């Protein structure tokens, strides 16, 4: 059941994104080009993501470290 919910969530997100997409012209992107709108983690989050990686079992897909170096403490 959980798997079904997860896959449904993924498919729902993708389909919502694609069906509601409108072609946005370059001159209409002033809001999207705002620094705060960047679709990536901030550089200032880098070390937060590192400690969360070590203090929790889950990792990856957030732009943080995915290997290399121990940081076992």
């Amino acid at each position, binding site marked *: 059941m959980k798997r079904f919910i997860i896959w449904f969530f993924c498919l729902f997100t993708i389909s919502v994104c694609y069906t509601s997409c409108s072609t946005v012209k370059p001159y209409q992107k002033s809001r999207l080009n705002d620094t*705060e709108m960047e679709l990536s983690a*901030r550089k*200032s989050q880098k070390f937060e993501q590192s400690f969360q990686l070590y203090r929790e079992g889950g990792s990856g897909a*957030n732009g943080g470290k995915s290997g290399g170096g121990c940081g076992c*403490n």
Partner: protein
Amino acid sequence: MKKIYLSVLALYIGILSLHAQTPIPAKDTTNYKARKLKIDEINYVTAYYHQNGNNSAVTGGIGTEKLSDFANTFDVQLSSLRPNNHKNTLLFELGVDHYTSASSDKIDPNSVSSASKSDTRVYPSINFTRSNENTGNSYGFTGSYSHEYDYQSIGAGFNLTRVSPNKNRQFDLKLLAFLDKWKVILPVELRSSQYGSGSSDDRRPVDYKPRNSFSASFSLSQVINTRLQALLIVEPSYQHGLLATKYQRVYFNSNFTEGVGPDLNIYNERPENLPDNRYKLPIAVRLNYFLDDHYIIRTFYRFYMDDWGIRAHTAEIEIPVKLTSFVSISPFYRYNTQKGTRYFAPYGQHSIDETYYTSDYDLSDLQSNFFGAEFRIAPPKGVFGYQHLNSLELRFGHYIRSTGLNSNILTLHLKFK
């Protein structure tokens, strides 16, 4: 004589005409402007992290988890414009972390200072990316290295970006491989008499084991409308080698028949033991919405699963509030819930029949809350009037874990342009 005059005059006019002739530049039809290597930006990020708790894995799931870490990275991005509007970008990064850990000091509590009481990690990396300024498409390569007292890592990567013709959709692929080598340090009471401590003044041998990590990151970003954009990331990864931390102790609820240690008299304790392979699958979505000129909503959700039985859901929300065009405050909140690995049990609760065992609470059932705020300033004339200091970000976060661990982190990011 006339002939001589005429010849001299002709020669003079010829020389004059040669000097007077200015070369007519060939018409540039490619808009190509060659540009030498120049610095695009420099970033310096520094952070101080401090945690406290009472479930240290080094002491079998009990004992202090007090730890402090002072982390720094410095990166320089250079670029040059090549023919056909190709841009070459070089990114150099150097990271230096220094930590002190009370629990690591318990590897050998009898020594004045054990091998891992404190350590410094140095990790340089370099990335080269070639991009087409017209299409936005790019590809690149990364090399990295990491060194700490008991751990070395060499990494290599490849990245590829493809952008749709209308530039509203982007696909990114990142392939990464890390080939690591780990010095196997054991708790003092579990070492045989021939096994070394790992410190430089101990000539007795210690084992070295590999730990290799491979990951592929597929991401698709999409502009949905003039205010909303989304990103989907799938990042499967595989690890192989020594994945257990051998200086972390595990205590059992009964005795093994064979003793270990220098006198072979330890019966209910072993170093942590975990499988040599681990498959991880995180899937994440980011959704950013420009509400109005003052508020932006940044959201993130991730589902994580691996073959050790860990399942986790992570959700984040951050709302940058623009006080002026150049100053913003961004409060944020992150929630994480995790079903722990099947190999975890608390202190003294593992059975001797189990093949794999750990008392590391990082891998247990847990919930965590992380909240704080970021202050950002980026005036057009530079921060504090210094033209090259493009922006300053100061960020503080407080972390509370359901196992009792608490931590604080303060980060400063300076961007120079």
